[in-house]
């Protein structure tokens, strides 16, 4: 312990490298930011831009709660440095609804009660948007395998798979829409 605290103090003595200017296009809006190079995309979104829909779960790429889309591909924003994504198009959960209408996956998650606490949900939905764009999943079995990067501690998996199946096939909802 003593050794690591000494190492930490030595590190703290180092001058902080200059911040870098980065432009991220988040949900279609250009955001110019001045960031330390070690700022993750997740922290840039949540702390610097104020979009807190993207969640920090494990912060180690193991849970998928931080999933966002970069140029249409799903990635873990907690393992991505914001400075490496200068100029990229980033889509977060806040960018999915269009003209006041929920994205079909958002609606499907409501229709199928595909969450309990909801903490993993933004990541699940962004991941599912990526999954559908990849066109590699046709069956429930393939959806399960290709959604394995998103952990749900409440165990809503069967309903998550059903919601994604609905959004993929555009089948009518199994229950009346909304409720409120």
């Amino acid at each position, binding site marked *: 312990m003593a050794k690591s605290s000494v190492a930490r103090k030595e590190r703290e003595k180092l*001058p902080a490298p200059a911040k870098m200017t980065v432009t991220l296009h988040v949900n279609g809006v250009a955001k110019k930011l001045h960031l330390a*190079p*070690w700022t993750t995309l997740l922290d840039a979104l949540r702390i610097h831009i104020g979009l807190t829909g993207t969640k920090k779960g494990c*912060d180690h790429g193991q849970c*998928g709660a931080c999933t966002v889309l970069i140029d249409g591909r799903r990635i873990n924003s907690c393992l991505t440095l914001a400075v490496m994504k200068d100029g990229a198009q980033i889509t977060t959960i806040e960018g999915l609804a269009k003209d006041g209408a929920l994205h079909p996956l958002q609606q499907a998650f409501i229709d199928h009660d595909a969450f309990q606490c909801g903490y993993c949900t933004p990541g699940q939905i962004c*991941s599912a948007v990526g999954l559908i764009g*990849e066109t590699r999943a046709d069956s429930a*079995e393939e959806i399960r395998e290709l959604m*394995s990067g998103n952990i749900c501690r409440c165990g809503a998996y069967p309903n998550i798979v059903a919601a994604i199946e609905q959004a993929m096939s555009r089948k009518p909802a199994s229950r009346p829409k909304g409720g409120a």
Partner: protein
Amino acid sequence: MNNFEFSRATDVADAVRQIAADPGATFVAGGTNLIDLIKEGVTKPSRLIDITRLQLNRIEDTNDGGLRIGALVPNSDLAYHPEIDKRYPLLASAILAGASPQLRNMATAGGNLLQRTRCFYFYDTTTPCNKREPGSGCSAVDGLNRMHAILGASEHCIATHPSDMCVALAALEARVLAAGRNGERSIAFADFHRLPGDTPHVDTNLNKDEIITAVELPPNGFAKNYSYLKIRDRLSYAFALVSVAAGLEIENGLIRQARLALGGVAHKPWRDRRAEAQLSGAPATRESFARAATTVLREARGFDHNDFKIELARRAIVRALTQAASGTPQSQIDKRVR
């Protein structure tokens, strides 16, 4: 994370120049392992050199009929590339057995080769680890070692190499192209990763100021008779306890050529040429496969918690070779082992 500097490399020569100029610098591409290691305080680079803008993202034919994979090709693009799917399905299968779709979208071919062990003690900076801190000791030898090596380990380190992709590359006899100050060189896959010996902190034979530019596959992809069988604690998104990459060429019931490599069992992807030679010319039967498994595991040694891996590996070898011989490779969607 520690306070590192950040710069971008404009081309391979610039990347080599930058890494040579700063002994504490490291390259970053996908970042899926490196950023995590920095967060944990395991790796403390003075500078990250972003290589993602280098033109190393192509998959192209080589003159000898093989395929050259640029170091920056993302794992998912590689696995789903039509030529890989058709000519090297063993590689596609191994890649899809690893990580998650998000991580495969980020992780690169070159980075996959350089990822570090997921040994708990390597990650836990409060414990001794010869790989993280040379000379401090190995906590795993007498610790929790269920995930650890049964082949090629040393008293200094019993960590395993975590990659699935590399197991297939070992079996396919790939080559690694690396550029440095003295130009480019080609490294046989078997010579790329190292056994721990008394220098477990050195994972590979890549020099500090070299950059991987590509991975080359020879023409033979064993596309007809292959299987990648991965055994793990949960069905997806988990590291291998044992994995087996098997490739066979069979003529009239006799094996003409065999390839066999294991993951999750050693400090490097574990290819066994003696077992391959033994299979060559033998009938494609369970008895031949069992004999090959015995050969692969002739010097296997457990460290208590991982003793079960020896028998698991024996069965996995027989099963993967059986799947390969019958042309029914392990599905990476339906995980039932048949």
